[in-house]
């Protein structure tokens, strides 16, 4: 997935979420950048081993979103906000399993 697609998706998320324009766009571009860099290395592991690394990338994305929001004066959300990175981690293994089942090809590291 290209970075321009991520940017577009992020803009849509911002409007749908009634947030600051560019907030999710920036975060999504950052995760695409990270997957472009680490994607090949991630492919070496099986999906269970990939999960914590994907979780880390998701956490970085959330930190970017929080940083943008707090820079605009929002209060920090409570810890539960970051739990969505944990659910992302837990869902990674079944998710990638389903994707490989459906696509019948190598796990797509960009399918976040």
């Amino acid at each position, binding site marked *: 997935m290209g*970075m*321009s697609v*991520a*940017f577009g998706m*992020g*803009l*849509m998320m911002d*409007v*749908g*979420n*009634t*947030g*600051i*324009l*560019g*907030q999710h*766009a*920036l975060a999504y*571009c*950052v995760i*695409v*950048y990270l997957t*472009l*860099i680490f994607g090949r290395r991630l492919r070496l592991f099986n999906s269970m081993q990939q999960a914590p690394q994907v979780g880390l990338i998701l956490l970085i994305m959330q930190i970017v979103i929080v940083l*943008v*929001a707090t820079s*605009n*004066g*929002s*209060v920090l*959300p409570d810890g539960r*906000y970051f739990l969505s990175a944990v659910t992302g981690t837990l869902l990674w293994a079944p998710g990638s399993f389903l994707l490989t089942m459906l696509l019948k090809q190598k796990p797509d590291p960009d399918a976040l």
Partner: protein
Amino acid sequence: METAPQFFRHGPGPFARLFVFALLSCLLIVGDTRFKYFPQLRQAIGVVIFPLQKIAYIPANIYDQVEEFIASFYLLEENIKLRLLYLENREQLLKLHSLEAENIHLRQLLGAVQRIETKTRTKTRTKTVLAEILYTPRDPFNHKITLNRGSQHHIQLGQAVIDDKGIVGQITQLYPWSSEVTLLTDRDHSVPVQVVRNSLRSVVSGTGKNNQLELRYLSVNTDIQQGDLLVTSGIGGVYPPGIPVATVQRIERDPTGDFAQIISTPIAGVDRNRQVLILSLVQSESNDVLELPAIESGKK
């Protein structure tokens, strides 16, 4: 570019691309938050994602319909309850009419004629549009909801949104078929209010936390008590006067500080309802009648 195989990377590297897009997003962020440059862009994207949102909420809609089907077994009971409520309200409404007439009469006696009369008339004539909450965004940083009525349904920016108990918020962004409501509890939202007990005027602002509003800049010795009811004062022309907003919950008078910290809770179910009412704008109707310099200067 598209015909080239994946492993021959053309164009700039990942970091350069990230840099370009990060710069673009930063420009958007600054432009959006500091200067509010992009309402049209927002509206265009809103139109594009509207069908996607509809599709995404199909499961929720199905759940609602099932729930409604189950609830229909209790309709008879609910009907009786509502009828009783209607009778009660009817009685109060009758009282209101006589009170209004009496009020006008008394004001005429006092000589303070035209202004309040027209105001009460516009208030009782306020038109409302019933709207349903399309969805609430899962963003913890701002308190907004999206309604299923938009500019195609003659909704305007700045209209007040209420439920059966009090003020919910205000329309801040319009899309053709939907609109965004900033809730009372949003950090950037404030309502001009009045304490019912002693008609003290103030402004109540959101704190960004659920069910918490704040009365800022009231001095430590202000006459305000726990349980005081705050209603809209009608100053500013956005909200019609006399609609309940919040009750004072906690007052912390710190003698070393200049201001008391007054926390209140909204009366309306800001985070609970399915249906809300959109009130028509107050000033659009009353502007042609009013010629009061005092009010105009207050309005800015």
